[in-house]
């Protein structure tokens, strides 16, 4: 089976969808001739023409608003917002328009669009190229929010997102674009070409939305993670020797409560890890869900490991990033409680 980077897997997903459905169109800043600043759309304009893949003005609200109109017409726009940090000008179009259109029109109009956005830090992007705004989407009725952690999932989840009939926010952890990342920034990154999750089949397949994956089975503690943090959690488990069960959520909303609850009931302990800031982060929702559904099975308080409640700094990036040491300390603390 061919191995691909996450960038290549995403490009492959777009290619497959554009071939299968002529209504799938790709646009955004720099995505056309150049192929995107992360090269996820490279070659698509040359292959499918400028009516299917084209550059947009630097106007995120314009990009998303136009996509809503296109989707209402009957196209399936898959839009790239160059960095998730740039989506704020488009937030009204996402929240008040794309997310509500089906509901408010009682199904007369729908917005089957995908908004792809590179998310997260670890590339020295400072506070405007490193944010993880997933909680701003999970709080909105009508949005599906997806965060893949590896090339296989990225392709399958993106195809499922493009084929979904509702708006999907597709957050791509940019730190994982070219290789898995264990949270040790001083170590060389293992390329996806040498990692089993770099195996990406050719052609069409989907990974279902709303379903989590158990990445590592264990009995002592459940770790709920997504995106880059899945690999940080794996490293923390290996380094501490704690028998952790690691769940990769893949889709945040709709969330896979069944998998979460089954695991926490088995282990009796839960650590939640995300890169976004702590307060009102998606971890708070997960923590409440675990508390509501697993309270009598818990042997220790639920613990969250997250980005600090500061803007993402530049020079202190590795003090901000929730690395394996912090996750390891959390794992030990719940085991000792």
């Amino acid at each position: 089976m061919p191995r691909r980077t996450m960038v290549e897997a995403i490009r492959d997903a777009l290619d497959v969808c554009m071939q299968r459905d002529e209504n799938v169109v790709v646009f955004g800043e720099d995505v056309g001739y150049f192929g995107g600043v992360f090269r996820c759309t490279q070659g698509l304009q040359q292959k499918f023409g400028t009516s299917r893949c084209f550059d947009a003005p630097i106007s995120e609200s314009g990009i998303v608003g136009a996509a809503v109109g296109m989707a209402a017409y009957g196209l399936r726009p898959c839009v790239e917002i160059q960095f998730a940090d740039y989506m704020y000008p488009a937030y009204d179009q996402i929240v008040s328009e794309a997310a509500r259109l089906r509901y408010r029109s009682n199904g007369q109009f729908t917005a089957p669009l995908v908004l792809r956005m590179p998310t997260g830090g670890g590339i020295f992007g400072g506070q405007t190229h490193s944010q993880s705004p997933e909680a701003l989407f999970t709080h909105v009725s009508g949005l599906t929010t997806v965060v893949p952690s590896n090339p296989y999932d990225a392709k399958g989840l993106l195809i499922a997102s493009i084929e979904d009939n509702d708006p999907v926010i597709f957050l791509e952890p940019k730190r994982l674009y070219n290789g898995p990342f264990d949270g040790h920034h001083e170590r060389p990154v293992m390329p996806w070409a040498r990692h089993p999750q770099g195996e990406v089949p050719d052609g069409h397949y989907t990974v279902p939305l709303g379903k989590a994956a158990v990445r590592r089975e264990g009995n002592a503690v459940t770790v709920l993670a997504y995106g880059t943090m899945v690999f940080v959690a794996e490293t923390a488990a290996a380094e501490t020797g704690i028998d952790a069960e690691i769940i990769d959520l893949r889709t945040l909303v709709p969330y896979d409560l069944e998998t979460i609850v089954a695991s926490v009931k088995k282990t009796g302990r839960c650590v939640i890890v995300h890169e976004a800031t702590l307060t009102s982060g998606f971890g708070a929702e997960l923590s409440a869900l675990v508390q509501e559904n697993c309270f009598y099975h818990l042997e220790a308080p639920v613990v969250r490991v997250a980005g600090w409640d500061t803007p993402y700094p530049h020079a202190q990036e590795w003090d901000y990033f929730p690395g394996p040491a912090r996750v390891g300390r959390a794992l030990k603390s719940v085991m000792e409680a």
Partner: protein
Amino acid sequence: MSSARPLSFHVPEPAVRPGGTPDFSDVPISRAGEVRRPDVDVAPEEIRDLAFAIIRVLNRDSEAVGPWAGLLSDSELLEGLRHMMTLRAFDARMQMAQRQGKTSFYMQHMGEEAVSCAFRKALEPGDMNFPTYRQAGLLIAGGYPMLDMMCQIYSNALDPLKGRQLPVLYSAREHGFFSVSGNLATQYIQAVGWAMASAMKRDTRIAAGWIGDGSTAESDFHAALVFASTYKAPVVLNIVNNQWAISTFQGIARGGSGTFAARGLGFGIPSLRVDGNDYLAVHAVARWAIERARRNLGPTLIEYVTYRVGAHSTSDDPSVYRPKTESDAWPLGDPVLRLKNHLIRRGAWSEERHKQAEAEIMASVIAAQKEAESHGTLHTGPHPSARDMFEGVFEEMPPHLRRQRQQGGV
């Protein structure tokens, strides 16, 4: 030490406030028939003057004059008059229904009926409007049933939107009427996106965006102009300048620009101003712009110069911020009266027939209202079910919403 004097802060103010004498003498108004009618493939830079003039057809003697006249037959004009009179009667009854507590809210069109009614008749089936809350004339003139409009306003058991939207935020796909958003200007760029899609698919349909004078200050207005001009989208971008954005006069959004239409010039978009109270002028300009879009000549910006006679909504009291007699002083008159007088002048109508038509139209509106109320009003009678509330958030209800619906006991 600096010799600079303190700066002073400038906030535009309307010419007159309550208690003063209304004065529109500073509004330059072109004479009927005076403004030229260029070919639709004219270069935008050749018609820059049309962004400052006002295209008018009906003169003071109720005659249709000039190069924009002569496009409509007697029967088409009579139909237009009937649409405007129906919208006015509909407004009167729904305004009263709100005062009677049968719904929460209403927004009327008094004084602006010609804009949406005349524009709608220039469109073809399959074209799509992205309207604001004050274009119900698009529905009336498009043949959408009044009963459905009223059921939406009452949020009753037959509400096509199942009680989910504020009154008057209609949605009627089959009638070329996009779901109205409560957030302003968002749909201007969506109209451009829809039009881009039509061009991308090599379709023949065009889109029309709608916005008020106040909302042109929103960034989405500017995004729409950028996208429309960049991709030469087949879209007509309408600005309804009714002078007032709730209590804020149009000078606050317009600022130093000469007119709202002039905003299109910097984008290279042909931009015209038209007398919004002149059914014939509105229709003629709409047809011109729609033909441009249809012939793949790109977007057109139109500013309709009109006046909001009524309150912004049933929650507004305009006497607080403008003279009560200001609407009487509005120099472009009443669109219904002007078309009526024109038809009488043409010998196609009479005072008697007008009175008779008024009575007939009101009777049909009242009959529709009775039927609508038999299916419930906001506070009495049948309603959409609480179970419906959970439907349609997504195509398929996800597990967390199913659990919440169970918790809610519905």
